[in-house]
């Protein structure tokens, strides 16, 4: 059996390959976007993948009125849950505790990692096997564990591939969507000893499964995310397709779940519509292959299940969004990824170019809360405000409206009472002056008439190079007569 070799090789190759993106400067973002949009392979593979996902979703919603009622219901559930968030979190904690789950609160990534490392140390854990969790990506869990000498191994096939490659997920649902099967074949042949090149997808999956199967048995701790946390029953719901989530949460002696504080709902009956719209919006599935409901550790007399279950509730900027009525809508998100699948910008640059854990439209509105506007102030500008994201969002987050709001927060003059960390980070005295001047012209009819008359009259002086516009287009030139001149001349 070649699996043991493969396993140790896979584990050692995880060590610190993917460095966290610690700083997202505007310049770095621009460079990554430039490189991505000029990469024909990336363009082709994302176009194809997004077309496929859009068609799959559309096929799940043949009846527009059914879709809209389900969106209304889902939006209502999320808004209701958020309106009672502090109460529901306390209720959740009480009921989980009653069920034997240990609940921990983490203000930020460092606290969350410290809590989980503490648990790992108490159990002298060497290996943690992970189900798919974007929150664990958000806190750079793998690196924190690696630095402390604990191996964290991804068991979701896409995440496993990304980890082997030393990369980051490029999509929140399909982390390795940026990779072709040929690239994966090469990766496996290089990184998994005893494996020779094959681009047969079934064989590749079998190789991965064999490696991972061993790990489930050896791992001291299993880690998972949470899709919905039910307050009234103290239940953690986990949506997945590969069964690795169930393995992570049942085979190792200890299960640690981590989630953002916004994932709580009050009642079990609130889960059904959200679950339905989640899988249909995300992967175009009527339902996922697995749906796990975790209500506590193994009870006396039970044959399986972990001996300990922990839940880490992470804030990491969420309470900042929560404090503002409009920005709070960001937290309605159920992480389906439909906004990125339908985003014309994401389709052209892929997920890695963003440099944030969550890419695409949702990433642009949630990352500023997690990372601060100093690093992320350019992100909200990377949108035409076309509205495709808002159109498909299953919980009707008004993403374009929030992008506009964040542009304002980033670019307004720094002031004493900021709603967000890093408010004013994108402030530019020049841009501010330009818009003030613009307003002085356009808000006064006499000024505007004079300005537009001059622009039209002296159109020959219009520059032939117009910033980014003429990189790909012929210049814009004012017409010889303005519409108001035409209207006047005619009378």
């Amino acid at each position, binding site marked *: 059996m070649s699996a043991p070799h493969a396993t140790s090789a896979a584990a050692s190759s995880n060590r610190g390959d993917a460095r966290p993106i610690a700083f997202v400067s505007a310049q770095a973002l621009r460079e990554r976007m430039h490189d991505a949009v000029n990469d024909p392979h990336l363009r082709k593979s994302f176009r194809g993948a997004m077309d496929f996902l859009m068609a799959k979703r559309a096929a799940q919603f043949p009846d527009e009125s059914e879709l809209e009622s389900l969106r209304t219901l889902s939006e209502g559930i999320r808004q209701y849950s958020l309106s009672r968030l502090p109460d529901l979190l306390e209720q959740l904690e009480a009921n989980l505790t009653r069920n034997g789950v240990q609940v921990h609160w983490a203000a930020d990534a460092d606290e969350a990692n410290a809590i989980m490392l503490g648990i790992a140390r108490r159990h002298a854990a060497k290996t943690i096997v992970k189900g798919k969790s974007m929150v664990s990506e958000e806190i750079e869990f793998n690196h924190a564990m690696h630095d402390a000498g604990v191996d964290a191994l991804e068991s979701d096939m896409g995440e496993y591939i990304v980890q082997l490659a030393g990369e980051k997920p490029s999509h929140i649902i399909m982390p390795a969507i940026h990779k072709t099967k040929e690239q994966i074949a090469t990766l496996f042949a290089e990184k998994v000893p005893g494996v020779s090149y094959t681009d047969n997808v079934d064989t590749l999956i079998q190789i991965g499964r064999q490696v991972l199967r061993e790990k489930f048995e050896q791992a001291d701790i299993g880690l998972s995310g949470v899709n919905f946390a039910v307050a009234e029953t103290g239940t953690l719901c986990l949506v997945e397709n590969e069964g690795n989530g169930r393995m992570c949460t049942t085979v190792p002696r200890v299960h640690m779940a981590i989630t953002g504080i916004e994932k709580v709902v009050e009642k079990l009956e609130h889960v059904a519509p959200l679950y339905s719209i989640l899988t249909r919006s995300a992967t175009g599935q009527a339902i996922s292959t697995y749906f796990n409901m975790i209500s506590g550790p193994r009870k006396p007399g039970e044959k399986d299940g972990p001996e300990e279950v922990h839940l880490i509730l992470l804030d990491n900027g969420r309470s900042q969004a929560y404090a503002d009525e409009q920005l709070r809508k960001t937290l309605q998100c159920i992480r389906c990824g439909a906004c990125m699948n339908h985003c014309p910008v994401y389709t052209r640059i892929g997920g890695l170019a963003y440099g944030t854990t969550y890419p695409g439209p949702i990433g642009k509105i949630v990352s500023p809360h997690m990372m601060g506007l100093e690093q992320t102030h350019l992100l909200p500008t990377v949108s035409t405000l*076309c509205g495709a994201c808002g159109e498909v969002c299953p919980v009707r987050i*008004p993403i374009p409206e929030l992008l*506009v709001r964040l542009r304002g927060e980033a670019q307004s003059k720094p002031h004493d009472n900021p709603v967000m960390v890093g408010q004013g980070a994108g402030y530019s005295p020049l841009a501010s002056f330009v818009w003030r001047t613009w307003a002085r012209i356009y*808000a006064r009819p006499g000024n505007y008439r004079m300005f537009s008359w001059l622009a039209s009259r002296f159109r020959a002086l219009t520059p032939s190079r117009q910033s980014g516009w003429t990189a790909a287009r*012929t210049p814009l030139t004012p017409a010889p007569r303005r519409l108001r001149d035409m209207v006047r001349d005619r009378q």
Partner: protein
Amino acid sequence: MSSPSHAGEHTPRTYPPRPAAVYFYATCLVDLFVPEAGMDAITLLEREGIRVIFPESQSCCGQPAYSSGFPEEARKVAASQLDLFPEDYPIIVPSGSCAGMIRWHWEKIFADDPALHARAAAVAARTFELAEFLLHVVGFQRRDEGEPVTVTLHTSCSARREMGTHLVGRELLARLGNVTLAHHGHESECCGFGGSFSMKHPDISTAMVSDKVAALKATGAREVVTADCGCLLNITKRAEKEDLDAGRSKPSLPGEHLATFLLRRTGGQPARRN
């Protein structure tokens, strides 16, 4: 009233009976860059027996500043426009994007001022995109006097997702007997203009507009028609650049505003730019 995030959410709008007069709100882009489209829209309306009032003091709906993250500047400009429409006539805007700004976003920028908010809401309620007004209020129906032609239609994202008028352009074209509409790939996708986006992120904007131009050309249509001048300029100026770079003298993708196209096809005399 909150802005829709999906066209399907629009409760069908109640349209007024055909009025004696309308206000024409041209938008800054039309006034300065594509005045012929505005003139043709006015001619179309007048030909239907509707008096068209062009408020002299109009400038801009404020959208450029609003979407760039300068709500205060947008507010100043929008506030200067609230007095332009004293009579209770419909306000016709030849652009989905500016119509969307007035209809959905003016109320937001005046949210903390009840008096201005009420006036903005009253203006928003009688603001119509030209195409929807032609179809639903005027009941545009004229004989197509042009030669048989195949055209393709680009619908702006605001028309599609804010005004919910993505089918209106199609229906108007379908009323022209000799016009065949060719659909293009990724039709609902943005052309990549996005106002300041085209300046701020030229790489991505170029990629988007190039794809859009390619999809429009692939239909083999003789021209592209659209009811939004932002998209029109973005698409046609990109196509012109491609022609220039390839040394073509004949435009490979000419474009027209829907108003100009409708007027020309139905025996009207489109305005001359010069």
